[in-house]
């Protein structure tokens, strides 16, 4: 029995197989419509995350399975003080697979140690969010044709953004990937990622402060939100905030086939006027999130569809 705790739990080969399956699901959804008939997914969400939970539920429903669960700690036995270990033992009696979101880092791992059903980490604090990374990888591979040979710009809060860190870890396993790190000084990628990951593995990268400077060379632009409270002073925030808002004017600097990705929710870092640009792929990305979760459920439940 396997669980998914980190996007690196899968080898490159296993990941390829998972993404192939997700693409097959996209192409022939009817083939998979009853693949999980009689199976139940428990969504144990100790903190609210509507999109991730609904994406998991949509994935299971698309596979003909059923869903049960809770969407906040208040409505679960955690409010009564039950441990994660005890909760998962009970959930194991009710469902066939579990997706767990928890504010405490490592909670899904603790659950997986006591569980008799596969556990998927659906986000644990600021630590890991593997299905977001799988979503990003599927989107890039589906729309670009491969995961190697790309120049990807990561823009915004690169210091605290776990989706960005996970994506870097996942992409360095592919050949000829170049990173352009676009952030204010305060929100640069942490030194352990620059030194222990990028430099240690000789992965080419550059750091720039202005999005405009990076646009022309990018194959993919991965946007994240820059929150005002992350800045040390108001002056810097006012000086820099517009650099990290993607507008139609900035899109004119980009390649004709560049893709814009965003883990969503978007607040104001991508102007609504960009939504109609064919290069804006963030809503398609949400759709790929459902396909990849369907593929993940099938893989972890070891269900093969001929």
């Amino acid at each position, binding site marked *: 029995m396997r669980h998914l705790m980190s996007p690196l739990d899968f080898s490159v080969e296993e990941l390829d197989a998972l993404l192939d399956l997700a693409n097959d699901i996209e192409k022939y959804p009817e083939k998979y419509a009853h693949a999980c008939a009689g199976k139940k997914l428990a969504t144990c969400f100790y903190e609210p995350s509507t999109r991730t939970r609904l994406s998991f539920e949509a994935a299971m429903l698309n596979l003909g399975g059923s869903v049960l669960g809770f969407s906040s700690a208040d409505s679960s036995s955690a409010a009564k003080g039950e*441990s*994660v*270990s005890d909760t998962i033992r009970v959930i194991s009696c009710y469902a066939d697979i579990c997706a767990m979101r*928890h*504010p*405490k*880092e*490592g*909670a899904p*791992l*603790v659950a997986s140690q006591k569980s008799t059903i596969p556990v998927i980490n659906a986000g*644990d*604090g*600021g*630590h890991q969010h593997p299905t977001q990374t799988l979503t990003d990888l599927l989107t890039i591979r589906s729309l670009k044709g491969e995961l190697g040979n790309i120049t990807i710009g990561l823009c915004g809060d690169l210091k605290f953004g776990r989706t960005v860190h996970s994506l870097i870890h996942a992409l360095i396993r592919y050949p000829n990937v170049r990173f352009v790190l676009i952030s204010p000084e305060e929100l640069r990628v942490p030194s352990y990622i620059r030194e222990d990951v990028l430099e240690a593995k000789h992965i080419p990268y550059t750091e720039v402060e202005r999005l405009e400077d990076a646009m022309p060379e990018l194959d993919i632009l991965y946007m994240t939100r820059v929150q005002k409270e992350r800045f040390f002073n108001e002056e810097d925030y006012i000086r820099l905030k517009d650099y990290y808002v993607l507008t139609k004017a900035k899109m004119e600097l980009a390649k004709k086939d560049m893709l814009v990705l965003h883990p969503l929710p978007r607040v104001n870092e991508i102007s609504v006027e960009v939504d109609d640009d064919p290069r804006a792929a963030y809503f398609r990305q949400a759709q790929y999130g459902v396909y990849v979760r369907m593929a993940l459920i099938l893989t972890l439940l070891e269900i093969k569809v001929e």
Partner: protein
Amino acid sequence: MLTISGIQEGFVLDHIQAGMSLQIYHDLKLDELDCTVAIIKNVKSNKMGRKDILKVECPIEALDLDILGFIDHNITVNVIKDNSIVEKKILHLPKQVKNVIKCKNPRCISSVEQELDQIFILSDSEKEVYRCKYCEEKYANPRRR
């Protein structure tokens, strides 16, 4: 010159960083053993300038080498039998340490889950980095030389 007699059977921990012997005495739970222990502090050393030494008269099995390796793998462990050194044990960084140190990350599940073992895993043997098994928070060992 202070003289401390030899031991019949037991072990001598040599090359302990000066000032660390009492801490190691507690970490190895030597206070719980019913045996003779000599804590020698601030001994002159050519190699280290100053060092501490621990002499313990008890069977060698009573010593948790993994914990000692985690605390400081530069310590020399001399096994004594019949008043002479019969073996020098080489300490290694253990792959994991259980219930020796606590994760300091307040967002870690180990801060709230009942009776969860505190496990740290060696993630970089060159830089001697241990990380919490659950949240991957780095443990900065203050005793590392």
